[in-house]
């Protein structure tokens, strides 16, 4: 009896502590409950597995870019060995984020090969033409066969000029392929130099004075400044151009005037003016500030949830949970009388302990997570049912109340432990192998199973012992429904 009282105090202490935790550390809600965007990024490596170092390096670069995105409470974390998850609460259009994060953003400075001026001029013209065609294609009604035919004919003429034919059948794909081809041809006219995005210390942007276009400003470190001076010196006053190449595509080609023939362009800074829109300039700025990615990445999953849908999801799950609990509680009290009442109290404790652990660990609550919690309530009730059925049998056999309760708990013990272990095994596997979505479910169900072992075997027993301490609550008919029904 003394030991039980100790347990009672312990349980009350745990309950107070849980409530304290819940008040001071509110639950973290997943994006499906509060609205926002979630991107899953996959590292691409053709040969071999992605190493931990590579994952960390990618993570570090992306982290810098994410911080420059300006979305409050954004969160980037690794998932498994080769994925990252980015959460942008409140963000409803992840397009800009996806463009900023998805690019490798490898910046290179290249110098034009000698005697390629006329070739380059042709290619620049063709690049202009293909961009025009793509713009046209984007604006026309895709059911308008005449217009599409016109675009197709123009494209064929252009492809003839450059001696290229795309293997794709779809018009849009053909346009994109041709654009890529021209862009590669242009890049091939330039020689690599040792100046890259690594030599930058900062990047910025500003609006050009003459027109509305934006330009991106680059500041080099000391070494980078020297390299830049050397490179510009080598082509100053010639017809060779300096190209700024981003991810293999030349985004800007410029000549270096003859006044730089002696020293090159000094001062450690440069400007890229490539017809940037304000948005594009900002994206490039953020990418350059973060540095280039050591491995390319691909956005493999995007979820966007509107804020009102999120709160609707919360309300719906809340209703489901509360109604479920009320029905279960009514059923238990109807069936098991005082025992049912005890199980309802221990279920309430169970709920508090669960939520407190979520905020302690912390577990981010998502929709599948709530499903796991609701299902785990079923498991917790099951344990109580097992025990109470045993107690009932013992009572029917004519044993005393106290003895029945004792052996009820003892004999139900092994079944309960078995059931919990098998469920926990499933949860464990799901948590280790599962995706983000599945992990939420596995986590709440798994935690629920562990707590259920404690509440059903211990809380219920302690409360029951406490209640049976009162003489008036020791009548058998408070525990058994109409004895006559059972022989």
């Amino acid at each position, binding site marked *: 009896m003394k030991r039980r009282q100790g347990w009672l105090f312990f349980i009350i202490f745990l309950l107070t502590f849980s409530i304290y935790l819940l008040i001071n550390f509110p639950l973290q809600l997943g994006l499906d409950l509060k609205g926002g965007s979630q991107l899953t990024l996959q590292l691409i490596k053709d040969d071999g597995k992605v190493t931990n170092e590579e994952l960390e390096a990618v993570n570090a670069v992306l982290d810098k870019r994410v911080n420059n995105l300006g979305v409050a409470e954004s969160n980037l974390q690794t998932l498994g060995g080769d994925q990252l998850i980015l959460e942008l609460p409140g963000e409803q259009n992840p397009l800009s984020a996806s463009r900023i994060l998805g690019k490798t953003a490898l910046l290179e400075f290249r110098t034009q090969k000698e005697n390629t001026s006329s070739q380059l001029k042709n290619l620049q013209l063709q690049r202009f033409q293909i961009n025009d065609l793509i713009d046209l294609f984007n604006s026309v009604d895709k059911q308008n066969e005449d217009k599409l035919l016109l675009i197709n004919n123009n494209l064929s003429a252009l492809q003839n000029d450059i001696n290229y034919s795309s293997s794709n059948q779809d018009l849009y794909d053909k346009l994109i392929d041709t654009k890529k081809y021209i862009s590669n041809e242009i890049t091939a006219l330039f020689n690599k130099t040792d100046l890259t995005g690594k030599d930058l210390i900062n990047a910025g942007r500003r609006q050009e004075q003459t027109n509305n276009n934006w330009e991106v400003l680059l500041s080099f470190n000391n070494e980078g400044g020297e390299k830049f001076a050397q490179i510009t010196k080598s082509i100053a006053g010639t017809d060779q151009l300096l190209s700024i190449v981003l991810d293999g595509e030349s985004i800007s080609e410029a000549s270096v005037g003859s006044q730089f023939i002696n020293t090159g362009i000094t001062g450690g800074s440069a400007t890229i003016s490539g017809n940037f829109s304000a948005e594009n300039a900002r994206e490039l700025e953020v990418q350059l500030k973060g540095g280039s990615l050591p491995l390319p990445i691909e956005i493999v999953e995007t979820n966007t949830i509107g804020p009102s849908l999120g709160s609707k999801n919360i309300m719906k799950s809340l*209703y489901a949970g509360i109604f479920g609990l009320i029905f279960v509680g009514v059923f238990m009290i109807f069936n098991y009388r005082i025992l049912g009442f005890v199980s309802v109290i221990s279920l309430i404790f169970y709920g508090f302990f669960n939520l407190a652990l979520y905020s302690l660990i912390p577990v981010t609550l998502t929709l599948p997570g709530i499903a796991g919690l609701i299902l785990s309530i079923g498991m917790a009730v099951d344990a109580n049912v097992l025990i109470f059925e045993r107690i009932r049998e013992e009572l029917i056999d004519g044993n005393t109340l106290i003895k029945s309760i004792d052996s009820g708990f003892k004999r139900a013990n092994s079944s309960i432990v078995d059931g919990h272990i098998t469920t926990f095994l499933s949860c464990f596997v799901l948590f280790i192998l599962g*995706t983000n979505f599945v992990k939420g479910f596995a986590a709440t169900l798994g935690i629920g199973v562990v707590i259920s072992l404690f509440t059903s075997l211990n809380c219920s027993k302690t409360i029951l012992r406490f209640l049976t301490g009162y003489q008036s609550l020791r009548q058998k008919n408070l525990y058994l429904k109409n004895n006559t029904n059972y022989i």
Partner: protein
Amino acid sequence: MSILSFNLIKNKNKIFGFSSFLILLSLIGILYSTFNTSFKKPINLGMDFIGGNELRVERICDNECDKISPDLVVEKLRGFSNIKNISNNIKLQIQNNNRLISIRTPYLTIEESNDLITNLDKLVGPLNYESKDSRIIGPKLGKKLLTNCATSLLVSLVAISLYISFRFDKKYALFALLALFHDLLIVFGVFSWLGIILSIEVNSLFAVSLLTIAGYSVNDTVVIFDRIRENLKQSSNNYNETIQISINESFRRTFFTSFTTLIPLVTLIIFGSYSLLWFSISLSLGILIGSYSSILLAPSFLIKD
């Protein structure tokens, strides 16, 4: 206790017949789905596994939303789309009194998906962006998810099998596992049929529900086998009768447990959000079949002729 007792010894063959019938039906569904449907898979895999784009958004209407025809909207959307393959595979549903629009397409980039929404807004808007739910899954991730789910299922089935064979002697373990595979096969079969008839797709939550059912079903069977073992040790009754008594004794528990687990699931089906609907349905189904198999089928294996 009359309603609660079911004569297992007499009805053993009926139970086997019923289960065989269900399994046969499931196998037919799985085979039919594999060879005779457009998707050529044992089960209609959702976009979690094959990649794609899913968009659900509500329209803003004053009182009632005016009627729109899905075919007409799809026809007009084709006019805007850049990529043929995608515009030919748009599936559009209009639910909830013309208010809720859901669209499924093959994989789109975020940019293309935004275009789709903008165009949709032009056609049937204004749209309530606050209620938007958009998911884009790349084909690469889809494949990964599928293998991932399959391995999770296999690994945990092996883990459960090991635990059961360690916990019971061989005969009991075998029968518990037979009952388990019986349950999983039937739930799988039902969803094969749902895919064929109603085009219901399964996603990663379906795999989770199978795993949960596995844990649940084994748990149920273990409780009953425990009782049978306990009674066989003590009682001097005849073997078959002892099994019968044990089942009668555990019937109440299994019934109550299934019932109390079904209650929250049913409230989830009624009140829960759309994304949990089929998950809750498959869990409920699994629990019903699991209870049947553990109280009637698994002990029938133990009955001696």
